[in-house]
């Protein structure tokens, strides 16, 4: 993988994608509107004017590495921190001026924060009691919430006797019983082991569909994000790098950073001129402005040329774009020397030396043992042009 440092992204990009996404989900105005929010800790800026629109009923994941500001954003929405500038709106009302206990937002914390001195029942009932819910109503609602997370039998238990996964369900029930407009989840699955994690992911997803509440889920695990979300917002250094649905963010990454953060990719540095992009000996048709450009090419897009029967016109020599055929699956060929081949289950990871110091990685299914030089190809549409400059 070529490690390309993608320089900053602007908030404008986020908004542009958001507009598209909002139209895509068909929601009218966003349920939650984060507008140009800035937050500093001491001298260190964490959020730099971030804007996001969250639609009602969607499962939005805020993804990013540590320091990207994702947890801070969550805490601002929950009300545990105060923003330095900008606004947060829920529907018609300004949210950021309200204290945490007056917001119709509930949080599931990373280590659950179950009250150790209260039983499971009392934990779940806590919010209902705080808001003065009728005493007669409380037992039913608590039972309902616990049943929803399959913890109905444990109502009388002490939290100290529960496993991590069980505590997490109680935390969910405790939050959901209050029927919040938005549920915030702060890396709730990170403390669980891999199998339990997968199981909980599935349960969370179906729970969200069942309950219909907006979930805003924070994680640094991109696979988790892709599996669960309606939309993914990738944060980087306090700004939205891209926000859109998982297929889009994977197939059409906006910047080099997105391309590398989500899944694996090859970054091709090409010169674009007269509608053709050239990277070393590889050339393909590309639109957009002329000049230097970066392209993202996923390893699984690269195939062995001679094996694939659907290969397009053979073309003379390697690396030539196909002729005037404008089919989107026009394929691009190139030659390369096999450097390494690593077994990877269904597909092998193959490092290819394409000359001029360019090394690509390909994921090819059951190629047999490869050696020496070979011919490869990929579909033109798989080379996605990405921004990598702040001025994008």
């Amino acid at each position: 993988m070529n490690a390309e440092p993608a320089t900053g992204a602007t908030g404008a990009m986020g908004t542009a994608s958001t507009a598209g996404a909002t139209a895509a989900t068909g929601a009218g105005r966003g349920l939650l509107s984060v507008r140009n929010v800035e937050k500093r800790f001491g001298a260190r800026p964490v959020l730099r004017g971030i804007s996001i629109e969250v639609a009602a009923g969607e499962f939005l994941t805020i993804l990013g590495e540590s320091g990207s500001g994702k947890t801070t954003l969550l805490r601002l929405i929950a009300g545990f921190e105060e923003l330095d500038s900008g606004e947060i709106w829920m529907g018609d009302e300004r949210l950021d001026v309200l204290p945490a206990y007056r917001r119709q937002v509930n949080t599931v914390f990373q280590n659950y924060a179950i009250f150790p001195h209260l039983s499971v029942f009392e934990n779940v009932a806590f919010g209902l009691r705080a808001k003065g819910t009728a005493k007669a109503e409380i037992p039913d609602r608590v039972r309902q919430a616990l049943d929803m997370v399959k913890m109905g039998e444990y109502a009388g238990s002490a939290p100290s006797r529960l496993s991590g996964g069980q505590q997490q369900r109680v935390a969910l029930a405790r939050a959901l019983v209050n029927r919040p407009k938005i549920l915030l989840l702060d890396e709730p699955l990170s403390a669980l082991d891999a199998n339990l994690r997968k199981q909980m992911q599935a349960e969370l997803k179906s729970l969200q569909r069942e309950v219909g509440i907006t979930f805003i889920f924070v994680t640094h695990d991109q696979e988790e994000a892709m599996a669960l979300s309606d939309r993914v917002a990738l944060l980087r250094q306090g700004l939205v790098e891209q926000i859109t649905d998982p297929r889009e963010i994977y197939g059409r990454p906006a910047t080099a950073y997105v391309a590398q953060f989500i899944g694996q990719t090859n970054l091709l540095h090409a010169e674009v001129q007269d509608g053709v992009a050239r990277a070393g000996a590889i050339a393909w048709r590309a639109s957009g402005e002329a000049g230097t450009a970066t392209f993202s090419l996923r390893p699984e897009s690269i195939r062995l040329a001679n094996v694939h029967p659907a290969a397009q016109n053979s073309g003379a020599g390697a690396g030539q774009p196909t002729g005037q055929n404008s089919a989107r699956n026009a394929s691009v060929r190139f030659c390369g020397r096999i450097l390494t081949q690593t077994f990877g289950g269904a597909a092998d990871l193959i490092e290819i030396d394409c000359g001029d110091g360019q090394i690509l990685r390909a994921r090819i299914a059951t190629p047999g043992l490869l050696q020496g030089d070979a011919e490869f190809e990929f579909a033109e549409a798989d080379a996605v042009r990405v921004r990598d400059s702040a001025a994008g």
Partner: protein
Amino acid sequence: MYTRAYKSAVTIPPLLWVTAFLLIPYAILFAHSFWSVSPSQVIVHNWNLQNYLELWRNPMYLTVLFRSMRIAGSVTLLALLLGYPLAYYVSFHAVKRKDLLYQLVIIPLWASYLVRGYAWKTILGSDGVLNGFLQFLHITHGPVQFFLYSPFAVVLTLTHIYTPFTFLPIYASLEHVPRNMVEASQDLGASPWKTFLRVILPLSLPGVIAGATFAFVLTLGDFLAPLLVGGPSGIMISNIVVSLFGAAYNWPLGAAISLCMLVLVVALLVVTEKIEKRLAS
């Protein structure tokens, strides 16, 4: 997360109390040290430095002060010599009964200072247990006088009081020495003694400094032990202060001495804080 109201609610009451009952009293103490007493036993607010000059000029005060510092130094040293090995033993060598041994050290602390001082008085007196014991064994043939009512008695009593005080912080810092560091040292071939010198001792220094500071400062300001077991030759600086506030009725002078003590203590605390900070980095 905490509102202004919350923060004010928790900060203001203790702040007020501490101002009223610590800050203002110290200020009054400070003021008194610059006043003097008229012949008719009235405190006159004539701001001057007489008291401090008196302390400096009159050799008696300096003598007693130095004696107090010697006693404090001896007590600190002895308490460390007793407390450190004990702490080391309980921390590193007592595997099974560590908890019990620790509690055994704390318990005497709750035996009331007065009670323990009094106990030493009965032990050290010419009719006391020690003399009786020595005569019983025919080691001596008459009561030994200097056991009681001497600086020796004061040092002995105060060492007894303050050994648990040095034990505690040293024990705490020894417990925090990572055991795998000690094991690594042994693995690399260092003898137990070398391991102690090079690894354990340096890491336990913060505890040693804390314990030593407490022992020294509190001994210096002690007036009860001298009154119980010190006799005329065991008088310490605080006893002078006590008499100045009692029969000798010279509050301003007493205040001046107290203020000097206060300044000395604060200075010592600042210095040890700085040392501990440097050790921690």
